[in-house]
């Protein structure tokens, strides 16, 4: 069917996309505004970027967020890959439905629920085991790996299901042991899914406010936490600059991923 040029659905699509992008465009535009009054345009300037970089509190939080995102995304890829393999390749086993439910629940579970429950776990662990370190970045890492692994699992599972079983069987038939099949065949073929999964986990971790607010230790404030307490007080040009950097950074990251693992972009839409 040929798309009609001005079908009602087509108009809705254009309006919907405009709805999605206009606010972001405005933020980016105003980040270059010279005026401190966010809405009055007084001229092009990059002074807010300078102030942003000079804000040591923000920079420290950004560093924390990067560390958390890097480590938790990597952990999420390992866990999510295991879960994806279990669901795509292990057929029926006892408790499959229950496990599937628990793995996938964080995709939709409100963040406040995940945040409070994990915090109570960490507090109880601190009380019970004297050797447990207090809450800090590592508790955020665990919490983030837990909810981002769900996304990785979905992506990996979809990729494995789309992959012919015969390819792995051919490798076994040619003499490869299970470990070698996984290392030389399954893993390389999963590469686009792993890249997409890692990126998604990384971005989601970088973005999380609610869960981190619950589980982070006093010395381990993350970037969204600082941003949140700042924008609660209102709109500020410095945050506009930060938002611009985040938007541009995400785009660069995605473009790089698309370039490194061709096919990764196609995979990035998890089938929910």
């Amino acid at each position, binding site marked *: 069917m040929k798309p009609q040029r001005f079908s009602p659905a087509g108009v809705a699509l254009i309006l919907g996309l405009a709805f999605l992008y206009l606010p972001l465009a405005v933020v980016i535009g105003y980040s270059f505004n010279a005026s401190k009054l966010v809405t009055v345009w007084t001229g092009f300037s990059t002074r807010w970027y300078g102030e942003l970089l000079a804000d040591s509190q923000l920079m420290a939080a950004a560093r924390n967020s990067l560390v958390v995102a890097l480590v938790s995304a990597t952990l999420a890829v390992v866990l999510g890959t295991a879960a994806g393999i279990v669901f795509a390749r292990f057929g029926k086993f006892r408790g499959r439905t229950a496990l599937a439910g628990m793995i996938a629940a964080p995709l939709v579970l409100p963040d406040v629920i995940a945040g409070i429950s994990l915090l109570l776990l960490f507090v109880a662990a601190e009380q019970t085991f004297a050797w447990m370190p207090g809450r800090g970045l590592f508790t955020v890492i665990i919490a983030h790996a837990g909810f981002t692994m769900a996304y990785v699992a979905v992506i990996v599972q979809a990729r494995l299901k789309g992959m012919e079983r015969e390819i792995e069987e051919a490798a*076994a038939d040619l003499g490869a*042991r299970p470990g070698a099949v996984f290392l030389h065949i399954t893993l390389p073929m999963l590469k686009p899914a792993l890249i997409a999964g890692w990126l998604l986990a990384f971005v989601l971790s970088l973005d999380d406010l609610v869960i981190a607010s619950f589980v982070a230790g006093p010395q381990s404030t993350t970037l969204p936490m600082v941003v949140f307490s700042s924008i609660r007080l209102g709109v500020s040009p410095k945050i506009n600059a930060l938002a611009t950097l985040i938007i541009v950074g995400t785009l660069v990251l995605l473009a790089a991923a698309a370039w490194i693992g061709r096919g990764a972009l196609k995979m990035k839409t998890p089938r929910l």
Partner: protein
Amino acid sequence: MTSVIRIAAVSKRFGPSTAVDDVTLDIRENEFLALLGASGCGKTTLLRLIAGLEQPDSGAIFIGGDNMTGTPPYARPVNMMFQSYALFPHMTVADNVAFGLKQDGISGAALTARVKEALEGVELETLGTRKPDQLSGGQRQRVALARCLAKRPKVLLLDEPMAALDKHLRERTQLELMALRARLGITFVVVTHDQSEAMAMADRVAVMEEGRILQVAPPRELYERPANARVARFFGDINLWDAAAAPRRPHPAGIVAIRPERIHMSRTPGSDTVCEGTVADVAYLGTASTCFVTTTTGLTVRVLVRSDEGAPPFTPGERVYLTWPASAMMALDP
């Protein structure tokens, strides 16, 4: 002749359905055996059981005299060419071929030599650096073949090797496979649903239906002396009659069969006429026509009439007289 593979009373079930049902089969050294049957008859499962990709529920599989029941696929001296070819999409042609050799610990110059030899064997030596998605269907099939043959298996298993090829490529590939087998002197086991393909290539054909083997025999024997009506139906056109209703009844019970090309049809009665009837329909096939004749007793008889017999072609409504030698009739179990 010694058997290179012995399948002894093997059964395999998938849930409620039985894919392979108590099959016993000896595959001889250096033979070209075809497993023939409609889709879902269990022929591919049987092949996968030999490869070790499935494990039997009961029975045993011997390869080269060793009991290989339970042995994983990577430890079996057989290799399989998959219907989809299952080429590793992330590896070059040469790496695909080298994969199986590397698993055997072959490396360095020996590896390079073996890969080169295997690719030369299928005339793909110039395409070693390509990826599978840069090859044509025929080329992909030959890579899959080379990948198996590089391992120098005792037995090569081929699952519907022609299924993904164009018609004109199929006939050429058939000849190539037969030549290859003659040159290498290894056993080929081919799964196919195409009876003409099985007849053309195989030394022996095992006809399967519903998980069981109906008959194992050379193609000529299958055609001329089918074990039962189900096998007979598989190979070409045939008239199958209930013995009680058959003209010139040789047996009192069972099913009587006769090939349409063994029946002679003429417009005039003769001393040897077996029955007479009316031409109901004519299907023109080029070199011959199939005529459907309704006899005076109400039986429908298919008759193959060659186009070069000189006489004007038969037309529906004509009165005709049929005859055939008694030896052309076969008594079959249902």
